[in-house]
């Protein structure tokens, strides 16, 4: 019985339920970050430390910051400051902080164990993932880079304010 996996899974499910039931977008975003961190812990436990790092850096870091930028851009104006202070009341932080502390305790306990074994099948290191990505999956990696380029161009084109051009 691997209780690391099950505790992280319960945290992930609880945080995801909170995401889809919140009324406020910033609150939902906080819970979504907790959910992604829990899934990252599960990846670590499953013997995928590189994927766990990518999950934290790219999902919980970059993509969530993008969401935050857009939410904040949609609320420009004189009342945005008081709105933000009403969003982030101390009481609001209790739920996400509780869930994150559970994950933190789990992580510290897991790292402090000597002779840590992720799974019977063993850990797949970043080196092996890189050899796979740029070996048999090279075409896929190139296509993903083209997709990201298309995403950049599309976001730039769509994100421009079309009224500026006419004026």
């Amino acid at each position: 019985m691997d209780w690391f996996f099950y505790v992280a899974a319960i945290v992930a499910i609880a945080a995801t339920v909170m995401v889809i039931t919140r009324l406020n977008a910033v609150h939902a975003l906080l819970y979504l970050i907790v959910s992604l961190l829990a899934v990252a812990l599960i990846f670590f436990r499953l013997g995928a430390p590189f994927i766990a790092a990518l999950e934290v850096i790219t999902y919980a870091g970059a993509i969530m910051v993008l969401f935050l930028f857009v939410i904040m851009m949609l609320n420009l104006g004189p009342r945005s400051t008081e709105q933000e202070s009403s969003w982030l009341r101390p009481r609001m932080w209790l739920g996400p902080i509780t869930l994150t502390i559970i994950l933190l305790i789990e992580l510290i306990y897991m790292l402090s164990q000597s002779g840590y074994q992720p799974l019977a099948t063993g850990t797949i290191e970043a080196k092996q993932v890189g050899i796979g990505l740029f070996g048999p999956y090279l075409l896929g990696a190139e296509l993903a880079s083209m997709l990201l380029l298309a995403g950049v161009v599309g976001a730039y084109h769509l994100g421009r304010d079309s009224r500026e051009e006419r004026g």
Partner: protein
Amino acid sequence: MPAVPMEHGLFLAALLFALGLIGVLVRRNVIFILMSIEIMLNAAGLAFVVAGSRWAQVDGQVMFVFILAVAAAEVSVGLALVLQLYRHLQTLDIDAASKMRG
């Protein structure tokens, strides 16, 4: 024998995917719909990594990297569309954009 049966990992992925699907179907705010799509993509990636760890192959993790690229491209274009929607309609309600004209 692995400490976590593969079925439990796949069940967790299915549950997270179902929660994301419920979010897409129930919520009408376009930002929440994009967040739910992120949850679904992440759940799909979790299923790949669980399967890859079951057979100790790198393919599952390589697929997760691809899913990550797709999610990043999707969310950047999607959020740019959200900005355009808000500029045109001054609302984030997805039902307000159901008419296919100007």
